[in-house]
């Protein structure tokens, strides 16, 4: 028996095939394109793939072929506030946000889903490569069948409630090539449309220039961890922990080795640099966390250790992933003092506050936190 499905259609090939599969599965599907930009461009350029009028028309043409109703929903205001402004604010604070996760968290799976539920829909279907599995304690989020295309990281922000209404028709698809072939077979002219991979609201991909326009440029020092001034920069907000390129330091380090950004101090407009080893961290933690499905205690992974800050649990073995395309690393996680604390079994390089740490147990996405602080494998380096 089919349910009412809201198919989010970006105009790209993945969401097109996802919508087609939802229709074929017998669901009552309505296609919705999200208008996220207040001043959308007319034609697609470069690697952008979701925010132009052309993309909206591409989505509409697929809906036409599927013979499903299609609407454009305007979430540009929410997007400007919850994603774009958040991006600017986070960089201004010296943190490194992931806008795609913010969009999933606040727009796609919150504002859109909630509107959909209020309008009588049962589920939202997207073209993400990830699986929803019925586990012993309810719905669970898992990696897609194929590791290479897996997008479960950017869905790590989903809550238990949201997961109840998620439908990922591409979960078991082995490769993007297969999705393209299926799109071509269905006659979708978006079959060969290029993938999008830049930040959608920065048209030319020049994040630093884009931020400089919004945050302003202000010259400041580049320091070593010991406080020695080794160069200058045009605004601390433009730097990310782990960054090597674009430092433009006047002279090399004493040992002649390349230097990396270790810390960004927006309040004093300082950028701290040092050798690669100093990037290694042994622990990360964050207080803004969520669990996708049953929490570690209900999942039988850890003993309850709730405290005055609320939920808490004893350490349990897991893997942690800190970027969409990073490898997961073995770790031990616990929740105490209102923080998700992750101790790494092997040091991890270049982890910036603001990034999301997604916790995996096997293929299951357990939850995530936004990283507030890290502990250096050498010495403590925090976001300040």
């Amino acid at each position: 028996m089919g349910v009412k499905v809201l198919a989010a259609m970006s105009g790209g090939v993945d969401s097109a095939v996802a919508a087609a599969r939802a229709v074929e599965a017998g669901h009552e599907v309505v296609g919705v394109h999200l208008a996220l930009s207040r001043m959308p461009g007319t034609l697609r350029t470069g690697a952008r793939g979701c925010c132009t009028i052309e993309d909206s028309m591409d989505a509409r043409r697929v809906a036409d072929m599927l013979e499903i109703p299609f609407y454009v929903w305007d979430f540009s205001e929410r997007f400007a506030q919850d994603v774009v402004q958040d991006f600017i604010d986070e960089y201004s604070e010296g943190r490194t946000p992931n806008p795609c996760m913010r969009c999933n968290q606040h727009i796609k799976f919150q504002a859109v889903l909630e509107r959909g539920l209020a309008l009588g829909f049962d589920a939202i279907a997207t073209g993400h490569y990830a699986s929803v599995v019925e586990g012993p304690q309810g719905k669970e989020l898992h990696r897609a069948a194929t590791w290479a295309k897996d997008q479960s990281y950017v869905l790590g922000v989903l809550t238990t409630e949201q997961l109840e209404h998620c439908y990922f028709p591409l979960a078991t698809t082995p490769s993007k090539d297969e999705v393209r072939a299926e799109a071509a077979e269905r006659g979708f002219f978006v079959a060969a449309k290029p993938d999008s991979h830049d930040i959608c609201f920065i048209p030319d991909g020049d994040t630093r220039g884009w931020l400089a326009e919004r945050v302003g440029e202000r010259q400041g020092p580049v320091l070593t961890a010991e406080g020695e001034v080794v160069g200058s920069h045009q605004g601390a907000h433009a730097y990310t922990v782990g960054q090597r390129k674009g430092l433009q330091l006047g002279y090399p380090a004493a040992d002649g080795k390349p230097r990396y950004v270790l810390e960004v101090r927006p309040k004093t407009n300082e950028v701290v640099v040092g050798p690669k080893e100093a990037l290694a961290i042994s622990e990360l933690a964050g207080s803004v966390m969520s669990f996708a499905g049953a929490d570690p205690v209900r999942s039988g992974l850890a003993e309850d250790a709730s405290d005055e800050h609320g939920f808490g649990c004893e350490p349990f073995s897991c893997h942690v992933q800190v970027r969409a395309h990073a490898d997961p690393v073995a770790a031990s996680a616990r929740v105490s003092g209102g923080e998700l604390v992750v101790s790494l079994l092997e040091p991890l390089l270049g982890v910036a506050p603001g990034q999301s740490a997604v916790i995996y147990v096997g293929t299951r996405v357990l939850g995530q936190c936004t990283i507030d602080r890290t502990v250096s494998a050498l010495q403590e380096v925090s976001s300040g």
Partner: protein
Amino acid sequence: MGVYLDYQATSPMPESVREVYVDALAGVGNPSSIHQAGQRQRAILEDAKERIARIVGCEPIEIILTSGGTEAINTALKGAVWAAQAARGPDTPTTLVSSRAEHHATLDALHWLSAQEGTDVAWVPVDDQGVLDTDSLEVILADHRPVMVATLLANNEVGSIQPVEEIARLSLEAGTPVHVDAIAALGYLPINFAELGVTAMSLSAHKVGGPVGVGALVLSRHAPELSALLHGGDQQRGRSGTLDVAGVVAFAAALELREQGRIEHGAQLAAMRDSLREQLCAAVGDVVVRGSHDARLPGNLHITVPGCEGDVLLYLLDQHGIQVSTGSACQAGVPEASHVLLAMGLSEETARGALRFSLGYHTTEDDIEAVVSVFPRVVEQARAAGMASGR
């Protein structure tokens, strides 16, 4: 088709008009050709123009056929500014007078002229019913020497009929030509170009059941010539492009059909519209009717519903097979907050909850009943969705 209540977006073509249109497409010859086939086409075209001219109260020679209302309006406004520059020199300051509640074809042309030609636009305020304030117009006309005054005959969103006679009188006294956008009013209100005494008037065929892509600029024979928008043959008073015989024939047929039943049908439409208004207001207590209370297009009902997004209301009604509009312009399927409502002094939040029902000649009591029966539930759901999306 379901319940179609979006006649002001476009009006379906009656069968008799469709037949006339298709028959006319079989005609051979370019009406500008000298041979007899061309002459026959020219005769058909001129006959159609005469029929249109009779209905709108102008001379056939005053009708310049266009590709629609947008071209007609652009020709009037840009043509007036360019003609003034041609006469007085390219650096001559030019002023146009209009209101912020005009159709986008006018507003966007004004913005373009302002940006590209340095034209100064003097804005006449509209009141909270969307009616142009003629006292302010009088002051503006005294202070400026405008090239043209541009006004609607009736507002296409909220339906308010404008004081065009008064606007024309004041403008002409000040020696300023007037352009009237009569597109929303055509077929619903009596229009007499000569009696209005205006300089130019824009019309569109598809709003009265004629074909899309056919319109006219009525330009007084006494008006100073306008500079052309399109060049390439000068088929009609500066407007170039092969004349669309079948399109004009269908326009004339559609307009005549409308005009025959206009008074009787207009009264029926107004009665159904009033019934819809009363029932919607009774069903949902805080619905607010926008636009003029006493002088509005007979088929137009415009409301705002507090706590709702217009596009969500539209979506929900569409799910019930009821087709309406938020009334405002769309960009890629997203309605903007209506500039008309903003010009009337409404907040953006209030303006977002707008819905326009436009009834037409095929509308029945059953259509009204269909809307009334689902409206309370639709509003309830839209309010829940509005709160969910947190706007």
